[in-house]
Structure formats: C-alpha cells, structure tokens
C-alpha cells in the first residue's frame, strides 16, 4: 500500500484524464485500513475476503490449527503453479520468483483468519503476491520504476496508430509466431500493463476480480487492459514485420 504512488504507472503525462482522477481517488486514501472502505465499483460478496488485506491486523481466531492446515493444503497450495508463473513474469528471475511465492504463502498462512474458507483463494493469493511484489521486490528488480511515457505517448498521439495496426497485423502472422516472440512481446510491456494481460488472458480473472487484486476501480481495469492490448499488438506487429511474416 505504501508504495502505491511509486507503483502506479499514471502520472502527469497519462493520456486519459478521467481515468487518472479515478485512480487518485482510490489510491490516495491515507492510512493502513484503506482496504476496508472500498466503495463503488468493487462491491460484491467476495469483498470481505479480498478486501481484508493480509497487512491488516487479524484478531479473531477463526480456525483451529487443523483447519488452517486443511485450508492451506486444500485451497492455497493448488494454486502454486499459477502463482509461480505470475511471479516469474513479474520478476524475470527464478530465485526472485521463488522467494516471492514463498513469502506470499507464508503471509497467506499468517493471515489465514481473514480468509473465508471456500471463497476465491486464487484471487486472494494473487492479491497478496502482487502487494508483496510492489513492496519488497519492485525496489531491487531491474524493472524501471515508471512506465516509459514516451512509449505510451507516442502511441496514443499517433492518430493513425489504430488503422495502421489493424491493416498490418494479420491472423496468419500471429499464428506463425513462436512462443519466444509472444513472450518477448509480453515481457517488453511495463509491469502494470503486463500484469493486467497476465491476469485476464492467462489466468482468466474477471474484471471484478482484477479490480480487487489490483486495488483499482473496474473502469481503470478496463482502460488499462485496453492500453495494454494496444501496446502488445504494436509489439507483435513489429515482430511480424521484422520476421517478414
């Protein structure tokens, strides 16, 4: 939470003003308990589980030790594969990914009383992992701290970007691509754009789940996804061109 400002890709140069003000409203809340007063876009029955940040204090002992282990083994550990792959796509480093996943699981266990058995464990875990990444790993990773605004700006300021893209990129070119090219295109995106694509396209989270995992309104999920996809498409198009597909 503390690192939110640093993590947010948005800044003065961001192209969508409406979107920006929305972000401000949600991320500039003060204090550690800002997870408990979510409103608007993120209301639903899962709210409590996802909104209860693992950083918060848990005083109620909801589960016995045996129940805790059952939840941990039955609901948390089965997601380790997705968690590890998410961590690796965030850090680009096997050891960091391993540490990040380990830390996430230890936190999840420590705050297991704020998890309601049988609810969306995967989204809950992804949220913890994302927060751990921001707070602990972001600093030491090679990832630049901010979105490359030039990248974003030049794309959005180019009037015919959309037209150019749809005419140049062909379905056949995409089908001919190899995994490494797709992977490089995805990895070249700034972490916030990469993240929404991973969550949506690889992990199949809904917009609502993504909003909770990322602590942003659904409207921001949508606009960020839209931008991310356009940037990805741009990358794929230049791969296709350079490979002569």
């Amino acid at each position, binding site marked *: 939470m503390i690192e939110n400002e640093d993590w947010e890709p948005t800044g003065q140069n961001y192209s969508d003003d409406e979107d920006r003000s929305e972000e401000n409203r949600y991320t500039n809340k003060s204090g550690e308990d800002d997870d408990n007063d979510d409103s608007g876009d993120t209301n639903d029955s899962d709210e409590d589980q996802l909104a209860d940040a693992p950083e918060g204090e848990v005083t109620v002992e909801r589960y016995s*030790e045996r129940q*805790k*282990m059952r939840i*941990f083994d039955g609901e948390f*550990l089965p997601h*380790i*594969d997705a968690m*590890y*792959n998410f961590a*690796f796509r965030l850090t680009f480093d*096997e050891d960091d*990914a*391993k540490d990040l*996943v*380990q830390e996430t*699981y*230890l936190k999840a*266990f*420590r705050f297991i009383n704020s998890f309601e058995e049988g609810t969306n464990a995967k989204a809950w875990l992804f949220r913890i992992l994302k927060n751990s990444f921001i707070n602990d790993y972001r600093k030491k990773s090679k990832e630049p701290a901010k979105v490359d605004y030039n990248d974003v700006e030049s794309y959005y300021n180019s009037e015919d970007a*959309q*037209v150019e893209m*749809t*005419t140049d*990129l*062909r*379905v056949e070119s*995409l*089908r001919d*691509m*190899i*995994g490494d090219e*797709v*992977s490089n295109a*995805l990895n070249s995106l700034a972490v916030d754009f990469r993240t929404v*694509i991973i969550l*949506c*396209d*690889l992990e199949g989270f*809904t*917009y609502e789940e993504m909003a909770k995992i990322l602590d942003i309104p659904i409207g921001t999920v*949508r606009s960020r*996804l*839209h931008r991310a*996809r356009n940037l*990805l*498409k741009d990358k*794929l198009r230049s791969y296709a061109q350079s490979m002569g597909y």
Partner: protein
Amino acid sequence: MEKTDNQGCCSEHDRCLEILQLVLDGEASDTEKEYYMHHIEECMPCYRNYNIESEIRNILRSKLEKKPVPTDLVTVIRSKVNETA
C-alpha cells in the same frame, strides 16, 4: 464485400472496439454480444479486428511456455509454515 470499409474504419469504430474487448473477455452483456456479433457480419473492419484480437488471446494462451515450479518449493513452504503453526 467491403461495403462499409471506408478508410479502414466503421462509423461506430470506437464503440465497436470497446464492445469487442468486453465480448472477448466474457464481460459483455447479452445485448452487447448480440449487437457485436450481428455488426461484424456486415462490417469488414470490425470483423477483421475481431479475428485479430481473438487470435492474440489464443496465442497468449497457447504459445507461452509455463515454467515448472521448482521441485523443492512446496516442501520449503510447508516446513516454514509448520515452524510457525
């Protein structure tokens, strides 16, 4: 066949692009889905967009290699958890 294809863009291009995302992400309402599926039957640019966008999602799902979880990771996590339990 490309009767609405003027300047590579249909008259409702922005709205179409927006709905397309919702359709492919499984977040569109029935009305939006119906509108879009009907629209692409007669709008070539949007039809092309639809194919490109869904193929991008396909290749993301099918071509990205999954990293195998390190074999000792679960063991390490479990033993650390047992220490604290």
